[in-house]
Each structure stands twice: as structure tokens, then as C-alpha cells.
């Protein structure tokens, strides 16, 4: 049977929403720890973490904007 049934559609929705929930929960914890580590070294103004599937695993991308790195100060705009 190639056509997906309503029951399977519902199951798929439940499973996907559970998986998203688990990933988001893991990200919340990780993001808090990553922020704590980065804030020891720099003035973080924005932190973004995202997860995407990569083969059988995941790719976790962390993007952080920092106004300054402590002990270094502002960098040259041309840098």
C-alpha cells in the first residue's frame, strides 16, 4: 500500500513533534552551557544554535555574535 493512511499520518505527526520536543530540550540545556562558557571569554550579544540531520547523525551549528573578546577589545573593522 503506497498511500499513507490517516492513522499513519497522525502517528507521523506525533513522532515528529516528540522528536522536535526532545531536540529543543537538549538544545536549551546545551545553549545555556555554551553561553556560560563563551561569556567567560567574550561579551556575547547573540547566540544561536541549530540542529539539522547529517547522514545518520546531526549537525549542530553554533553562531555567536560577540561585541568584544575580553583582553582583546574591539577589532579593526577591516579585519
Amino acid at each position, binding site marked *: *500500500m503506497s498511500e*499513507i*493512511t*490517516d*492513522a*499513519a499520518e*497522525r*502517528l*507521523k505527526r*506525533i*513522532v515528529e513533534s*516528540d*522528536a522536535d520536543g*526532545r531536540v529543543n530540550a537538549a538544545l536549551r540545556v546545551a545553549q545555556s552551557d555554551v553561553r556560560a562558557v563563551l561569556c567567560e571569554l567574550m561579551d556575547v550579544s547573540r547566540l544561536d544554535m541549530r540542529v539539522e540531520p547529517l547522514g545518520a547523525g546531526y549537525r549542530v551549528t553554533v553562531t555567536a555574535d560577540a561585541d568584544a573578546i575580553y583582553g582583546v577589545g574591539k577589532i579593526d573593522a577591516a579585519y
Partner: protein
Amino acid sequence: MKSIVITSGKGGVGKTTVTACLGRALAGLGCRVALIDADFGLNNLDVVLGLESKVVYDTADVIENRCRVRQALVEDVRNLYLLPSAHGYLGEKVTSQNIKLILNSLAVTFDYALVDCPAGIEAGFKRAVAACESAIVVTTPHMSALRDANKVVSLLASYRFSPTLVINRVRGDLEVEGKIPTADEISRILKAPIDGIIPETDGAFDLGEMPKKPFELLARRLHLGVGEPLDPAAEYRGIRGYFKRRARRVK
């Protein structure tokens, strides 16, 4: 010896019944099978097998060195033995290391150890899973059971297991009518292969009344790696199947 944990997440889906019937089917193929009841506190594998009156020693006696593992084993049918769970509540005292040691001492004389896991994903689950080398997740085709099965499959994957599924209590007529997901759909969505499909058995109160064929097919797949699971929907397809479905609905 191959140690397999039979788990589910949700309670009441038939873990204990599947463990007992699969044990008998494997024993029927000539394998020596040990059934280990790891459901401490809410144990009933001995009752399902009808062996409760033959139990002398249990897991607690083995762990606390009051007897050897072999003394605690109770024979069910030829080649099939049960290691009963503790009579009293012993949950917190038992570790996965204890179960692993028991499995190691059984490895010399048995081909399979089927570990009946407690429901849930708490300490009892972790204890049973950590001691075994492969896993079977039992579920029914109901949404709540499938959702829990999905969580357990994900959890087992984090333990580096590649669990397979046994779908219990499948009603072929409901599958044909699209009211429950098909086996293929379940396998695809839960990302786990299906080793067994057990049809719904109305009015089966005794292990002896359970159909043998689905468990024989499951045992053959596990032991020999051949065959396909039963298709309970097959008899409800086509014109004859249509009338059968109507008859079942009326009943």
C-alpha cells in the same frame, strides 16, 4: 548465548506474554532458552507460564548467594527454563551488573536469554537494557503504545542498540479499513524493522490458547533469519475479506 531484552515503554502491551510465547517457540526449534523476569516488584512471568507453584528460589536468592543460578531455574517445557523474579520488592538492590553476572553464568548452557523488562523507561528499564546485547520492542498498533515505542526505540538507539519491533494485538480488519497504521508504515515512521506481528486473540486467557504460528515465525526470524512476519490483514482483503469485515463488525 544471545541475550535479548523484551521491552515496550508502555505497560499492558503484552511484553510478558510475548516473552513466554517466544521462549516456547525458540525452545520448539531446539534452542535452550532461559527466561529472566527483570520486572522486580510487579513480576508475573511465572504466573503467565503457570509455574508460580514450582518456584523455590528467585533472583534475590541468586544475587544474595543463597543459591546458584541453576538451582533457581524452573523448567517449563523441554529446553525452556524460567529464572523467577524476587517475591518481595528488591528493585533498588539489583543492578545491571547483577543481571549481567547471571547472564554470564547462564551463557555456558543456554542459546538464548530473554529478559522481560518492566514497563517505563526508569531504573528498571535501564538495568535490564544495560545487561543485554539486543532488544525487541513490543507495541500494539494503538497511538499511545506506538508513541511510547518510538521513545523507547530512540532511547535504545542512544545505547547503540538496533531494536526490532513486535506488533501485538493487530486486528487485520482495522488495518484494511485504515483505522490503524500498517506494519510497513509503523516500521517506516519508527525507523525500526518488524520481526513479528501477533494478531489480536479475542478471548485467549491462557498461554496455551495463544496462536503458535506468529511466534514460530518470529522465532524463525530471530534464530534462522528467515521468513516474514504474519499478515493478519490478508484474510480481510478482497471481496471475501469485505464480507468477513462486515461480519466481524456485526459481531
